[in-house]
Protein backbone atom coordinates (compact mmCIF):
# COMPACT_ATOMS: atom_id res chain seq x y z
CA UNK A 1 0.00 0.00 0.00
CA UNK A 2 0.96 3.64 -0.29
CA UNK A 3 1.01 5.24 3.16
CA UNK A 4 -0.70 8.59 3.32
CA UNK A 5 1.82 11.32 3.78
CA UNK A 6 2.14 12.21 7.47
CA UNK A 7 2.30 15.98 7.21
CA UNK A 8 2.83 16.53 10.91
CA UNK A 9 1.66 20.12 10.99
CA UNK A 10 -1.46 19.49 13.01
CA UNK A 11 -3.76 20.85 10.34
CA UNK A 12 -5.82 17.73 10.05
CA UNK A 13 -5.97 16.93 13.70
CA UNK A 14 -9.19 15.16 14.55
CA UNK A 15 -8.67 13.04 17.66
CA UNK A 16 -10.32 14.49 20.73
CA UNK A 17 -8.63 13.98 24.06
CA UNK A 18 -10.57 12.24 26.78
CA UNK A 19 -9.30 15.06 28.96
CA UNK A 20 -6.61 17.73 28.70
CA UNK A 21 -5.37 16.68 32.14
CA UNK A 22 -3.91 13.42 30.89
CA UNK A 23 -0.27 12.43 30.36
CA UNK A 24 0.50 11.63 26.73
CA UNK A 25 3.81 10.04 25.63
CA UNK A 26 5.41 12.48 23.16
CA UNK A 27 9.11 11.55 22.78
CA UNK A 28 12.00 9.40 23.94
CA UNK A 29 13.98 11.40 26.52
CA UNK A 30 17.29 10.59 24.82
CA UNK A 31 15.96 12.00 21.52
CA UNK A 32 15.79 15.54 22.93
CA UNK A 33 19.37 16.69 23.38
CA UNK A 34 20.24 19.52 25.75
CA UNK A 35 19.89 22.86 23.95
CA UNK A 36 17.40 21.64 21.34
CA UNK A 37 13.70 21.85 20.57
CA UNK A 38 11.59 19.18 18.82
CA UNK A 39 8.03 18.99 17.47
CA UNK A 40 5.52 16.61 19.04
CA UNK A 41 1.77 16.29 19.35
CA UNK A 42 -0.90 16.23 22.00
CA UNK A 43 -4.53 15.46 21.19
CA UNK A 44 -5.12 19.20 21.60
CA UNK A 45 -2.64 20.07 18.85
CA UNK A 46 1.03 20.37 17.92
CA UNK A 47 3.54 21.17 20.68
CA UNK A 48 7.20 22.11 20.96
CA UNK A 49 9.28 20.22 23.52
CA UNK A 50 12.66 21.63 24.45
CA UNK A 51 15.57 20.90 26.74
CA UNK A 52 17.52 23.83 28.10
CA UNK A 53 21.31 24.01 28.10
CA UNK A 54 21.32 22.74 31.69
CA UNK A 55 19.15 19.76 30.73
CA UNK A 56 15.75 20.80 32.07
CA UNK A 57 12.73 19.86 29.98
CA UNK A 58 9.87 22.16 28.96
CA UNK A 59 6.94 22.09 26.53
CA UNK A 60 4.58 24.65 25.06
CA UNK A 61 2.22 25.14 22.17
CA UNK A 62 3.97 24.88 18.79
CA UNK A 63 2.98 28.38 17.82
CA UNK A 64 4.61 31.73 18.49
CA UNK A 65 1.98 34.19 19.80
CA UNK A 66 3.41 36.86 17.47
CA UNK A 67 2.87 35.49 13.95
CA UNK A 68 1.93 31.85 14.50
CA UNK A 69 5.31 30.41 13.47
CA UNK A 70 5.98 26.92 14.78
CA UNK A 71 8.31 27.24 17.77
CA UNK A 72 9.70 23.73 17.14
CA UNK A 73 11.58 25.36 14.25
CA UNK A 74 13.19 27.74 16.73
CA UNK A 75 16.35 27.54 18.79
CA UNK A 76 17.41 27.14 22.41
CA UNK A 77 19.97 29.42 24.00
CA UNK A 78 20.73 28.81 27.66
CA UNK A 79 17.41 28.53 29.48
CA UNK A 80 15.33 30.18 26.75
CA UNK A 81 13.50 29.18 23.57
CA UNK A 82 13.49 31.59 20.61
CA UNK A 83 11.26 31.71 17.55
CA UNK A 84 13.10 31.37 14.21
CA UNK A 85 10.89 34.02 12.56
CA UNK A 86 11.52 37.20 14.61
CA UNK A 87 13.62 35.87 17.46
CA UNK A 88 11.01 36.37 20.18
CA UNK A 89 12.50 34.76 23.25
CA UNK A 90 10.54 32.77 25.84
CA UNK A 91 11.59 31.67 29.30
CA UNK A 92 11.02 28.41 31.15
CA UNK A 93 7.65 29.74 32.37
CA UNK A 94 6.56 30.39 28.78
CA UNK A 95 6.64 34.16 29.24
CA UNK A 96 8.12 36.32 26.50
CA UNK A 97 11.40 37.82 27.72
CA UNK A 98 12.67 39.63 24.65
CA UNK A 99 11.37 41.07 21.40
CA UNK A 100 14.53 41.77 19.37
CA UNK A 101 12.81 44.37 17.12
CA UNK A 102 12.33 46.44 20.28
CA UNK A 103 15.38 45.57 22.40
CA UNK A 104 14.74 48.19 25.08
CA UNK A 105 11.10 47.20 25.65
CA UNK A 106 10.19 44.80 28.44
CA UNK A 107 7.48 42.57 26.96
CA UNK A 108 4.15 42.57 28.84
CA UNK A 109 3.70 39.56 31.10
CA UNK A 110 0.59 38.58 29.16
CA UNK A 111 2.63 37.45 26.14
CA UNK A 112 3.45 33.78 26.50
CA UNK A 113 3.73 30.70 24.34
CA UNK A 114 1.32 28.47 26.28
CA UNK A 115 3.46 26.44 28.69
CA UNK A 116 2.44 22.81 29.20
CA UNK A 117 3.18 20.18 31.81
CA UNK A 118 5.98 17.67 31.24
CA UNK A 119 7.31 14.65 33.10
CA UNK A 120 9.95 11.99 32.42
CA UNK A 121 9.69 8.37 33.52
CA UNK A 122 11.15 5.20 31.96
CA UNK A 123 13.10 7.44 29.58
CA UNK A 124 9.78 8.67 28.18
CA UNK A 125 8.81 12.33 27.85
CA UNK A 126 5.17 12.85 28.77
CA UNK A 127 3.22 16.05 28.27
CA UNK A 128 -0.20 17.30 29.30
CA UNK A 129 -2.14 20.46 28.54
CA UNK A 130 -3.46 20.67 32.11
CA UNK A 131 -1.77 19.24 35.18
CA UNK A 132 -2.96 15.63 35.70
CA UNK A 133 -3.84 14.52 39.22
CA UNK A 134 -1.49 11.51 39.05
CA UNK A 135 2.09 11.09 37.79
CA UNK A 136 2.43 9.30 34.42
CA UNK A 137 2.07 5.53 34.23
CA UNK A 138 5.30 3.86 35.41
CA UNK A 139 6.43 0.59 33.82
CA UNK A 140 8.84 -1.11 36.26
CA UNK A 141 11.76 -2.83 34.55
CA UNK A 142 11.40 -1.01 31.23
CA UNK A 143 13.24 1.77 29.46
CA UNK A 144 12.30 3.74 26.31
CA UNK A 145 14.11 2.50 23.19
CA UNK A 146 12.78 4.38 20.15
CA UNK A 147 9.69 5.94 18.63
CA UNK A 148 8.09 5.89 15.22
CA UNK A 149 4.81 6.64 13.52
CA UNK A 150 2.60 3.95 12.01
CA UNK A 151 0.08 4.96 9.37
CA UNK A 152 -2.69 2.85 10.84
CA UNK A 153 -5.02 2.65 13.82
CA UNK A 154 -4.41 1.40 17.39
CA UNK A 155 -6.84 -1.45 16.75
CA UNK A 156 -4.91 -2.61 13.67
CA UNK A 157 -1.63 -2.44 15.59
CA UNK A 158 -3.13 -4.45 18.43
CA UNK A 159 -4.37 -7.00 15.90
CA UNK A 160 -0.91 -7.23 14.32
CA UNK A 161 0.59 -8.06 17.74
CA UNK A 162 -2.22 -10.37 18.88
CA UNK A 163 -2.46 -8.24 22.02
CA UNK A 164 -5.04 -6.07 23.74
CA UNK A 165 -4.74 -2.39 24.53
CA UNK A 166 -4.52 -1.54 28.23
CA UNK A 167 -4.26 2.14 29.25
CA UNK A 168 -3.32 3.07 25.68
CA UNK A 169 -0.44 0.57 25.66
CA UNK A 170 0.30 -2.94 24.38
CA UNK A 171 2.47 -5.47 26.23
CA UNK A 172 4.03 -7.92 23.80
CA UNK A 173 7.32 -9.39 22.64
CA UNK A 174 9.35 -7.91 19.80
CA UNK A 175 12.41 -9.69 18.41
CA UNK A 176 12.12 -12.23 21.22
CA UNK A 177 12.24 -9.51 23.91
CA UNK A 178 9.62 -8.14 26.28
CA UNK A 179 8.27 -4.86 24.98
CA UNK A 180 5.65 -2.26 25.85
CA UNK A 181 4.20 -0.14 23.04
CA UNK A 182 2.86 3.22 24.20
CA UNK A 183 0.43 4.54 21.63
CA UNK A 184 -0.77 8.07 20.93
CA UNK A 185 -3.11 8.53 17.96
CA UNK A 186 -2.01 11.48 15.81
CA UNK A 187 -5.02 11.58 13.54
CA UNK A 188 -7.54 9.16 12.09
CA UNK A 189 -4.83 7.12 10.32
CA UNK A 190 -1.64 7.79 12.24
CA UNK A 191 -0.35 6.45 15.55
CA UNK A 192 2.76 7.60 17.41
CA UNK A 193 4.42 4.53 18.96
CA UNK A 194 7.01 4.62 21.69
CA UNK A 195 8.56 1.23 22.43
CA UNK A 196 9.89 0.32 25.88
CA UNK A 197 12.26 -2.61 26.34
CA UNK A 198 14.29 -4.16 29.17
CA UNK A 199 17.11 -1.77 30.13
CA UNK A 200 19.85 -4.42 30.35
CA UNK A 201 19.58 -5.64 26.73
CA UNK A 202 22.78 -5.92 24.71
CA UNK A 203 23.26 -4.17 21.38
CA UNK A 204 22.10 -7.13 19.26
CA UNK A 205 18.92 -7.52 21.29
CA UNK A 206 18.10 -3.82 21.04
CA UNK A 207 18.58 -3.95 17.30
CA UNK A 208 16.32 -7.00 17.19
CA UNK A 209 13.55 -5.06 18.99
CA UNK A 210 13.98 -2.14 16.59
CA UNK A 211 13.83 -4.42 13.54
CA UNK A 212 10.78 -6.20 14.88
CA UNK A 213 9.11 -2.83 15.39
CA UNK A 214 9.72 -2.01 11.72
CA UNK A 215 8.24 -5.37 10.77
CA UNK A 216 5.22 -4.68 12.96
CA UNK A 217 4.73 -1.38 11.14
CA UNK A 218 4.82 -3.13 7.76
CA UNK A 219 2.17 -5.63 8.81
CA UNK A 220 -0.06 -3.06 10.57
CA UNK A 221 0.05 -0.79 7.51
CA UNK A 222 -0.65 -3.75 5.20
CA UNK A 223 -3.76 -4.57 7.27
CA UNK A 224 -5.05 -1.04 6.76
CA UNK A 225 -4.24 -1.17 3.05
CA UNK A 226 -6.27 -4.36 2.66
CA UNK A 227 -9.23 -2.91 4.54
Amino acid at each position, binding site marked *: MTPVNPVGDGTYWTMAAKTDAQWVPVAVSADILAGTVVPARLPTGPIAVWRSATGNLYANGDRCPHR*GMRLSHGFVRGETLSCIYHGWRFGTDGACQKIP*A*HPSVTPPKTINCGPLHVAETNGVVWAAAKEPAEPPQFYPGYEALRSLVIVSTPAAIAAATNATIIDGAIQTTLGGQDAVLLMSPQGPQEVFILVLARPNLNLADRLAVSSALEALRRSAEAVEGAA
Partner: protein
Amino acid sequence: MMPNTMRDAWYPVGLLSGLSDDGKDSQLLGEPISVFGAKNGRPSVESAGRTLPVVERFGHLWTSLGSPNKDLFTIPEADHPERKLVDVGVVRVKCSPLRAVENFLDVAHFPFVHTDILGAESHPEVSDYKVEIRDDVDEVWATKVEFFQPQAAKSAGGGITTEYMYRVPAPTCAVLYKTCPPRPGEWDVITLFVQPLTEDLCDVWPWMALFDDESSMTDLIHFQQLIFLQDRSILENQLPKRLPLDPAMETPTRADLTSVAYRRWLKRHNYTFGAQLVAE
Protein backbone atom coordinates in the same frame (compact mmCIF):
# COMPACT_ATOMS: atom_id res chain seq x y z
CA MET B 1 -18.68 32.71 0.64
CA MET B 2 -15.95 34.57 -1.16
CA PRO B 3 -16.87 38.25 -1.42
CA ASN B 4 -17.11 39.64 -4.93
CA THR B 5 -14.60 42.37 -4.18
CA MET B 6 -11.70 39.95 -4.39
CA ARG B 7 -13.00 38.48 -7.67
CA ASP B 8 -12.79 41.95 -9.17
CA ALA B 9 -9.09 42.39 -8.42
CA TRP B 10 -6.24 41.65 -10.86
CA TYR B 11 -3.91 38.69 -10.33
CA PRO B 12 -0.71 37.49 -12.01
CA VAL B 13 -1.07 34.12 -13.74
CA GLY B 14 2.16 33.71 -15.70
CA LEU B 15 5.37 35.16 -17.05
CA LEU B 16 4.79 36.63 -20.52
CA SER B 17 8.08 35.04 -21.56
CA GLY B 18 6.99 31.61 -20.33
CA LEU B 19 3.42 31.17 -21.58
CA SER B 20 2.52 27.98 -23.44
CA ASP B 21 0.50 28.18 -26.65
CA ASP B 22 -1.09 24.86 -25.71
CA GLY B 23 -2.31 26.33 -22.47
CA LYS B 24 -1.50 25.59 -18.86
CA ASP B 25 -4.11 24.65 -16.30
CA SER B 26 -4.02 26.59 -13.08
CA GLN B 27 -6.31 27.97 -10.39
CA LEU B 28 -7.46 31.37 -9.28
CA LEU B 29 -9.37 31.94 -6.03
CA GLY B 30 -10.22 28.24 -6.00
CA GLU B 31 -11.60 28.22 -9.56
CA PRO B 32 -9.95 26.40 -12.48
CA ILE B 33 -8.38 28.58 -15.16
CA SER B 34 -6.36 27.89 -18.31
CA VAL B 35 -3.61 30.28 -19.37
CA PHE B 36 -2.70 30.41 -23.06
CA GLY B 37 0.22 32.03 -24.85
CA ALA B 38 -0.66 33.00 -28.41
CA LYS B 39 -3.88 31.06 -28.88
CA ASN B 40 -5.56 33.90 -30.74
CA GLY B 41 -2.49 35.98 -31.40
CA ARG B 42 -2.50 37.39 -27.87
CA PRO B 43 -2.21 35.75 -24.47
CA SER B 44 -5.57 34.76 -23.01
CA VAL B 45 -7.12 33.19 -19.95
CA GLU B 46 -10.23 31.02 -19.84
CA SER B 47 -12.32 29.80 -16.95
CA ALA B 48 -15.26 27.42 -17.31
CA GLY B 49 -15.73 28.40 -20.95
CA ARG B 50 -15.50 32.13 -20.23
CA THR B 51 -12.77 34.35 -21.63
CA LEU B 52 -11.40 36.48 -18.81
CA PRO B 53 -10.06 40.03 -19.13
CA VAL B 54 -6.27 40.21 -19.38
CA VAL B 55 -3.54 42.82 -18.97
CA GLU B 56 0.11 42.42 -19.95
CA ARG B 57 2.27 44.36 -17.53
CA PHE B 58 5.50 44.03 -15.48
CA GLY B 59 6.56 41.00 -17.54
CA HIS B 60 3.49 39.07 -16.39
CA LEU B 61 0.04 38.21 -17.65
CA TRP B 62 -2.73 39.42 -15.33
CA THR B 63 -6.36 38.43 -15.18
CA SER B 64 -9.50 38.75 -13.09
CA LEU B 65 -12.47 36.46 -12.45
CA GLY B 66 -14.85 39.40 -12.06
CA SER B 67 -15.28 42.86 -13.50
CA PRO B 68 -12.34 45.01 -12.44
CA ASN B 69 -13.56 48.50 -11.68
CA LYS B 70 -10.10 49.95 -12.11
CA ASP B 71 -7.03 49.36 -14.23
CA LEU B 72 -4.18 47.25 -12.90
CA PHE B 73 -1.90 49.50 -10.83
CA THR B 74 1.21 51.01 -12.40
CA ILE B 75 4.77 51.48 -11.14
CA PRO B 76 5.98 54.60 -12.96
CA GLU B 77 9.50 54.29 -11.50
CA ALA B 78 9.90 50.93 -13.21
CA ASP B 79 9.59 52.53 -16.66
CA HIS B 80 13.07 54.09 -16.53
CA PRO B 81 14.90 52.65 -19.58
CA GLU B 82 18.15 52.00 -17.68
CA ARG B 83 16.53 49.65 -15.22
CA LYS B 84 17.04 45.91 -15.48
CA LEU B 85 13.66 44.18 -15.45
CA VAL B 86 14.07 40.83 -13.71
CA ASP B 87 11.60 37.97 -14.14
CA VAL B 88 12.43 35.93 -11.05
CA GLY B 89 10.07 33.04 -11.91
CA VAL B 90 7.30 31.29 -10.05
CA VAL B 91 7.56 29.60 -6.67
CA ARG B 92 4.63 27.67 -5.25
CA VAL B 93 4.06 28.06 -1.51
CA LYS B 94 1.70 26.13 0.72
CA CYS B 95 0.44 29.16 2.59
CA SER B 96 -2.30 31.75 2.53
CA PRO B 97 -1.71 34.30 -0.26
CA LEU B 98 -2.27 37.00 2.35
CA ARG B 99 0.39 35.58 4.66
CA ALA B 100 2.85 35.66 1.74
CA VAL B 101 2.16 39.38 1.23
CA GLU B 102 2.32 40.14 4.94
CA ASN B 103 5.73 38.49 5.27
CA PHE B 104 6.99 40.64 2.38
CA LEU B 105 5.93 43.78 4.29
CA ASP B 106 7.97 42.81 7.36
CA VAL B 107 11.56 43.83 8.12
CA ALA B 108 11.80 42.49 11.68
CA HIS B 109 12.41 38.93 10.46
CA PHE B 110 15.50 39.83 8.43
CA PRO B 111 18.07 39.11 11.19
CA PHE B 112 16.69 35.60 11.78
CA VAL B 113 15.50 34.41 8.37
CA HIS B 114 17.88 36.30 6.03
CA THR B 115 20.81 36.27 8.45
CA ASP B 116 23.90 38.21 7.35
CA ILE B 117 22.21 39.21 4.08
CA LEU B 118 19.19 41.43 4.80
CA GLY B 119 19.73 41.56 8.56
CA ALA B 120 22.08 40.72 11.40
CA GLU B 121 21.21 39.42 14.83
CA SER B 122 23.37 42.17 16.33
CA HIS B 123 21.15 44.86 14.68
CA PRO B 124 17.56 43.67 15.16
CA GLU B 125 15.93 46.97 16.13
CA VAL B 126 13.10 48.35 14.00
CA SER B 127 12.76 52.09 14.50
CA ASP B 128 9.45 53.87 14.17
CA TYR B 129 8.21 54.47 10.65
CA LYS B 130 5.13 55.97 9.01
CA VAL B 131 2.12 53.90 7.90
CA GLU B 132 -1.06 55.10 6.25
CA ILE B 133 -3.95 53.91 4.14
CA ARG B 134 -4.01 56.44 1.30
CA ASP B 135 -7.70 56.89 0.60
CA ASP B 136 -7.21 58.76 -2.71
CA VAL B 137 -5.50 55.75 -4.31
CA ASP B 138 -6.86 53.13 -1.90
CA GLU B 139 -3.42 51.72 -1.12
CA VAL B 140 -1.49 50.84 2.03
CA TRP B 141 1.81 52.72 2.32
CA ALA B 142 4.68 52.48 4.80
CA THR B 143 7.49 55.03 4.49
CA LYS B 144 10.73 55.90 6.28
CA VAL B 145 11.35 52.26 7.18
CA GLU B 146 15.03 52.07 8.07
CA PHE B 147 16.98 48.92 8.77
CA PHE B 148 20.62 47.87 9.02
CA GLN B 149 21.52 45.38 6.30
CA PRO B 150 24.80 43.46 5.94
CA GLN B 151 24.22 42.86 2.17
CA ALA B 152 21.16 44.83 1.12
CA ALA B 153 21.33 43.92 -2.58
CA LYS B 154 23.44 41.97 -5.01
CA SER B 155 25.11 45.29 -5.78
CA ALA B 156 25.77 46.26 -2.14
CA GLY B 157 29.40 46.08 -1.08
CA GLY B 158 28.96 45.92 2.68
CA GLY B 159 26.64 46.74 5.57
CA ILE B 160 24.46 49.83 5.18
CA THR B 161 21.35 51.30 6.74
CA THR B 162 18.74 50.86 4.03
CA GLU B 163 15.58 52.86 3.64
CA TYR B 164 12.43 51.11 2.48
CA MET B 165 8.98 52.17 1.33
CA TYR B 166 6.24 49.58 1.08
CA ARG B 167 3.12 49.85 -1.00
CA VAL B 168 0.13 47.48 -1.22
CA PRO B 169 -1.79 48.43 -4.40
CA ALA B 170 -3.87 45.23 -4.68
CA PRO B 171 -4.93 42.57 -2.14
CA THR B 172 -2.21 40.08 -3.11
CA CYS B 173 0.46 42.41 -4.50
CA ALA B 174 3.13 44.42 -2.73
CA VAL B 175 5.79 46.78 -4.04
CA LEU B 176 8.99 47.57 -2.18
CA TYR B 177 10.99 50.71 -2.96
CA LYS B 178 14.46 50.38 -1.56
CA THR B 179 17.67 52.40 -1.35
CA CYS B 180 19.66 51.72 -4.49
CA PRO B 181 23.36 51.33 -3.60
CA PRO B 182 24.82 52.31 -7.04
CA ARG B 183 22.42 55.25 -7.53
CA PRO B 184 21.82 57.37 -4.45
CA GLY B 185 18.53 59.24 -4.86
CA GLU B 186 16.88 56.46 -6.89
CA TRP B 187 14.82 53.57 -5.60
CA ASP B 188 15.16 49.94 -6.57
CA VAL B 189 11.75 48.38 -7.19
CA ILE B 190 11.14 44.87 -5.88
CA THR B 191 7.68 43.35 -6.07
CA LEU B 192 5.81 40.34 -4.83
CA PHE B 193 2.93 39.38 -7.10
CA VAL B 194 0.86 36.57 -5.61
CA GLN B 195 -1.57 34.37 -7.51
CA PRO B 196 -4.05 32.98 -4.96
CA LEU B 197 -4.74 29.37 -5.96
CA THR B 198 -6.70 28.40 -2.86
CA GLU B 199 -6.97 29.87 0.63
CA ASP B 200 -3.81 28.06 1.69
CA LEU B 201 -1.88 27.66 -1.55
CA CYS B 202 -0.36 30.29 -3.80
CA ASP B 203 1.98 30.85 -6.70
CA VAL B 204 4.36 33.71 -6.03
CA TRP B 205 5.83 35.68 -8.92
CA PRO B 206 8.56 38.02 -7.64
CA TRP B 207 9.65 40.71 -10.12
CA MET B 208 12.22 43.50 -9.93
CA ALA B 209 13.20 46.70 -11.73
CA LEU B 210 16.73 47.56 -10.63
CA PHE B 211 19.61 49.85 -11.40
CA ASP B 212 22.53 47.41 -11.47
CA ASP B 213 25.21 47.49 -14.15
CA GLU B 214 27.46 45.03 -12.35
CA SER B 215 25.43 41.90 -11.71
CA SER B 216 24.34 39.47 -14.39
CA MET B 217 20.65 38.75 -14.85
CA THR B 218 21.23 35.25 -13.47
CA ASP B 219 22.94 36.68 -10.37
CA LEU B 220 19.95 38.97 -9.76
CA ILE B 221 17.45 36.12 -10.21
CA HIS B 222 19.42 33.87 -7.85
CA PHE B 223 19.71 36.55 -5.19
CA GLN B 224 15.96 37.09 -5.11
CA GLN B 225 15.20 33.35 -5.27
CA LEU B 226 17.60 32.82 -2.37
CA ILE B 227 15.77 35.43 -0.30
CA PHE B 228 12.29 34.24 -1.17
CA LEU B 229 13.09 30.56 -0.59
CA GLN B 230 14.35 31.45 2.88
CA ASP B 231 10.91 32.93 3.51
CA ARG B 232 9.12 29.93 2.06
CA SER B 233 10.16 27.61 4.89
CA ILE B 234 8.65 30.11 7.34
CA LEU B 235 5.44 30.65 5.38
CA GLU B 236 4.70 26.94 5.20
CA ASN B 237 4.95 26.60 8.99
CA GLN B 238 2.66 29.33 10.29
CA LEU B 239 -0.46 28.27 12.18
CA PRO B 240 -3.27 28.79 11.50
CA LYS B 241 -2.79 28.52 7.76
CA ARG B 242 -5.17 31.40 7.01
CA LEU B 243 -4.24 34.92 8.07
CA PRO B 244 -6.08 35.75 11.30
CA LEU B 245 -7.94 39.05 11.09
CA ASP B 246 -9.15 38.71 14.68
CA PRO B 247 -6.75 40.96 16.62
CA ALA B 248 -6.83 38.59 19.60
CA MET B 249 -5.25 35.78 17.57
CA GLU B 250 -1.77 37.27 17.15
CA THR B 251 0.31 39.86 18.97
CA PRO B 252 1.64 42.76 16.89
CA THR B 253 4.24 45.31 18.02
CA ARG B 254 5.20 48.74 16.68
CA ALA B 255 7.43 47.01 14.14
CA ASP B 256 4.29 45.36 12.70
CA LEU B 257 2.32 48.53 11.94
CA THR B 258 2.46 47.85 8.19
CA SER B 259 0.90 44.46 8.73
CA VAL B 260 -1.69 45.95 11.09
CA ALA B 261 -2.70 48.45 8.39
CA TYR B 262 -2.71 45.73 5.72
CA ARG B 263 -5.02 43.54 7.83
CA ARG B 264 -7.29 46.50 8.53
CA TRP B 265 -7.43 47.37 4.83
CA LEU B 266 -8.21 43.74 3.93
CA LYS B 267 -11.04 43.69 6.45
CA ARG B 268 -12.41 47.02 5.27
CA HIS B 269 -12.69 45.73 1.68
CA ASN B 270 -13.81 42.21 2.54
CA TYR B 271 -10.60 40.88 1.00
CA THR B 272 -10.89 37.69 3.00
CA PHE B 273 -9.90 34.86 0.66
CA GLY B 274 -7.05 33.31 2.69
CA ALA B 275 -8.09 35.08 5.89
CA GLN B 276 -9.62 33.77 9.08
CA LEU B 277 -12.10 36.18 10.61
CA VAL B 278 -12.61 34.61 14.03
CA ALA B 279 -10.46 32.26 16.08
CA GLU B 280 -11.27 28.60 15.49
